[in-house]
């Protein structure tokens, strides 16, 4: 269920670059609040999980978000746009240390660090969440898509809520 980078079979070059760019585009869509675009970074049966560090390290589930299909992601987008209420803010992602390895069978594992700063209605920016992405990426018609993205926030005591995907 979890993705871990285990070997030193790091992939460099064009494929690694495409996977890094996939993450940057993913982050930019969220930061631009283009939520409708968010599910499109995944394959149809893609999985998006937020698994706080505390639980991951203890071998417990306790996800904040558990989507095991693109349709569940579409539902979250609809709910965030039309239904749910949450703090009014800007998000700003930074993604770094993207390392890719070939898992075989056309699947690539990517691991990276992320930081999300949030800026509130008063123009005050705070560190909202820092952690890691554990991705499984496949290429569909030459285009990279997430087969799975597990967000592991080190910031497992979140302040105060998570609405927009990390």
């Amino acid at each position, binding site marked *: 269920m979890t993705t871990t980078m285990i070997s030193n079979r790091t992939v460099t070059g064009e494929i690694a670059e495409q996977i890094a760019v996939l993450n940057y585009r993913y982050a930019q869509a969220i930061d631009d609040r283009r939520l409708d675009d968010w599910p499109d970074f995944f394959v149809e049966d893609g999985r998006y999980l937020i698994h706080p560090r505390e639980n991951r390290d203890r071998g417990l*589930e306790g996800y904040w978000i558990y989507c095991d299909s693109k349709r*569940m992601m579409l539902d979250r987008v609809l*709910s965030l746009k039309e*239904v749910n209420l949450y*703090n009014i803010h800007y998000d700003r992602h930074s993604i770094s240390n993207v390392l890719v390895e070939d898992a075989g069978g056309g699947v690539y594992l990517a691991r990276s660090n992320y930081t999300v700063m949030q800026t509130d209605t008063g123009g005050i920016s705070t560190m909202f969440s820092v952690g890691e992405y554990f991705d499984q990426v496949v290429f569909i018609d030459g285009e990279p898509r997430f087969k799975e993205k597990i967000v592991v926030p080190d910031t*497992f005591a979140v302040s*105060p809520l998570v609405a927009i995907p990390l």
Partner: protein
Amino acid sequence: MAPDGNVGLSWPKDDLTMIPYGVYINADIFDLEMERIFHGPSWNYIGLEVEIPEPGDFVTTSVGTTPVVLNRGRDGSIHAFVNRCAHRGAQVVRETHGNTKVHTCIYHQWSYDHAGKLVGVPYRNGIHGNGGFPNDFEPGEHCLNKLRIEIFHGIVFGTFSEATPPLVEYMGTPLKERIEALCTRPIKVTGYQRQRVRGNWKLYIENVKDCYHGSLLHSFNSCFGMFRSTQRGSSVMGEHPYHSVLTTYGVAESEMVGENLGAIATHKPKFELEDSSVVNVFREHTDGMVTTILTMFPCFVLAQIANHLGFRLIRPISPDEFELVWTNFEYVDDEPWQSEVRRKQGNLLGPAGYLAMEDAEALELAQQSIHGDQGKGHAFIELGGRAFEDQDHLVTEVPIRGFWKGYCEIMGFATGDDTAASS
């Protein structure tokens, strides 16, 4: 602190329909709460037996702001003590959980057994005849401060006060029966979720007793057709108005479909889910109970929302901040498909929950405005009438006033017209 015993707050109504906003921001009040409630005659949730299954297992938590360790001794007995060295005050246990033969403070290596008894003191008799503690030093007088504990269906509660009545008497009949219904089968922790909310802890306990906001603030309910206030429900406090059990009843057996699964839907929704697995529910209780939210004074919550099961602990941090800790669970004998249903429903609750995320936002808005206006004025709570009574509907705020009744009693605050002089 004001000499009037009410710390400058006015409680103009005996029926607690008006709550002084100062109670949410005043630092003197917060300190008094730590003394009179959390170190007073209250039972506080400390943890679960299943979190410390083996001898030597421990977890850390807090009662009010006081750091506490819950652990299991070599003989299997369960103990809780304050996590502060009897020597110079350092935090003894630093890990959040683990297993140890002995708890050793890093500062001067004083060590304690699982009951908090001092068992090791370096250089107690000095070195080469130099120094050491005086001859009348008694290790037995330097133990960690123990809490008295009681365990009910695997849930460990602790109290600092000798005056606290026995746990079952303290919780009263409705809580006892509901906990028995939910916790008789062996349980397993599925995970923890933590939220830091910039609000006073009492705003959250009010929130989980507040039937009014359910279908209004949490629009997911109504927009996706899951809950509305016209659903059959009840608001029960029983013997003690400061506790409550809120229940809604839902889907009839005949409406269930598939693998004992039925959608929670109660009316025609505004939107439809692409993937309805998140709101699939299986029948778990013969009485048709869909939602039950149980709160025990001061800070313990046990909630069953559809098939999602969890304890919640409200940890006060300061007048303006609390941590909400969710400890979610399932039953040991759950079938894999039942675990999957609970896992999917996890999307409804917690910090990103469709049915829960609004609470933190609403509470922070309240705290900001109350603080900004310097705690002036009073909150107004009259939905459901001015009596303290159990009701067979959910169009009510009565359990919130029940909380305040218990609060004022334990805090020693006078209520009624004669206290309305100031602020």
